[in-house]
């Protein structure tokens, strides 16, 4: 791995600048903002609360509902507001990425609603959304085993790089987002867009995990910051 200079001057194993903030929405039970370079998402968590419509209720556990939405102004070309095929899919994979962490059986007959809004999109929006959602869930006091961190890696030209952004996304060969559960070293989200072989996939995943570990540290710091301020005068 010799030095590769990327379009924005990063090293091959460097993420974009990370900014995480907890408690950004007043009316949500828990909320957070997460920024990875230009990609920005805010997440709000409501609940555990009563389930409506009632038939979705489960007698022995809480249900987790996620909604991923991209603002019309998030991309350079205006995108049509509302749910579409892409956002439905991302809502689903986000839910699947978060479910293993949460102690859903502690709140039977309730719903936990997670709303993710992407305000600015510059690749890896699902990763940023998951990162924001995890912080918001912790802020809401939903019992969880650990935080989950999410990051993408991919291939541009022949080089394997971490955290694909901008031109690398539109003109790169491969994009592979993962969500990583650091304590158990489990992967709870794995998607891939592009063609490669088994050996290279392993290499890309390894790099993405490295990015997740860095994001995990930032998430922990953001959470601690939020609650440390409370006691101080």
């Amino acid at each position: 791995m010799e030095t590769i200079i990327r379009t924005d001057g990063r090293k091959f194993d460097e993420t974009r600048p990370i900014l995480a903030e907890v408690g950004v929405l007043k009316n949500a039970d828990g909320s957070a903002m997460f920024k990875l370079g230009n990609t920005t998402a805010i997440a709000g968590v409501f609940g555990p609360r009563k389930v409506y419509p009632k038939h979705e209720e489960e007698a022995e556990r809480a249900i987790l509902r996620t909604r991923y939405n991209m603002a019309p102004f998030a991309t350079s070309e205006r995108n049509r507001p509302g749910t579409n095929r892409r956002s439905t899919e991302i809502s689903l994979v986000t839910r699947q990425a978060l479910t293993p962490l949460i102690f859903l059986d502690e709140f039977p007959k309730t719903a936990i609603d997670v709303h993710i809004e992407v305000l600015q999109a510059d690749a890896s929006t699902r990763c940023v959304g998951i990162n924001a959602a995890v912080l918001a869930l912790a802020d809401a006091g939903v019992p969880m085993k650990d935080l989950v961190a999410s990051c993408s890696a991919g291939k541009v030209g022949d080089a394997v790089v971490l955290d694909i952004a901008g031109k690398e996304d539109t003109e790169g060969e491969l994009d592979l987002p993962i969500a990583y559960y650091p304590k158990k070293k489990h992967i709870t989200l794995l998607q891939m867009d592009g063609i490669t072989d088994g050996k290279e996939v392993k290499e890309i995943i390894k790099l993405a995990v490295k990015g997740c570990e860095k994001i995990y540290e930032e998430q922990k710091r953001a959470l601690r910051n939020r609650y440390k301020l409370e006691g101080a005068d």
Partner: protein
Amino acid sequence: MERKLVIPGDFLGDGRSGHGAYEEDGKSFSSCIGLAEEKNGLYFVIPLSGIYSPKRGDGVIGKIEDIAFSRWIVDINSPYEAVLSLADASDEFIDLTKTDLTKYFNYGDLIFAEILSVSKTKNVQLSMRNRKCRKLRGGRLIKVTPAKVPRIIGKAGSMVEMIKEMTNTQIVVGQNGIVWVKGDHEDIAMDIITVIERKSHVHGLTDQVKAILEEKMKNAPKVERRREEEEEEPEPQEEDEFRP
């Protein structure tokens, strides 16, 4: 004792886990944001956020949401609604065919009740049999994080007693994070409760709160005068006063 701020996934120690924690391979980890504590090898976390989860024996403030044939449905600031049946509300015999239940508790009334039982499927039953249980008339409500209720009450009620005395108010604190305030300096009492909520894990909080209260009371003689005027007209007495 120094208490440590923990977030989900933080290692607490080797041993069993209690509230706000979970166990894996004999090790305890935190499952929420809070302050870690240890007692006889049992690790638990006092949460700093989160909703109220009903527990048996808790005294809660609830609002009457609905009235069924022989019971009231009560909102207790939790995802689970509570049920107060007539048998747990009164000792006297009430003929349901002749009595209108709204006479006792009407829609929107506030009550302080005790949680009698919570089933596994989270069916909550209330009782009015405790001496402290009653209907709350007038006054104002504040919502606080349920986890911080013990700090508002203080050691053996020291904090809340001090506020009551200094502001000349009646205060009822529900374990579900609802505080009812009625009396002369309601707004000062409410302000101070929000201060306690914000500073809940500061050491020596009672003394700090006392200082703030004294400062605030110096600048608040006007409220008392208005109160005196009010008292000239007697409060309308309700018929059929409910006594459990």
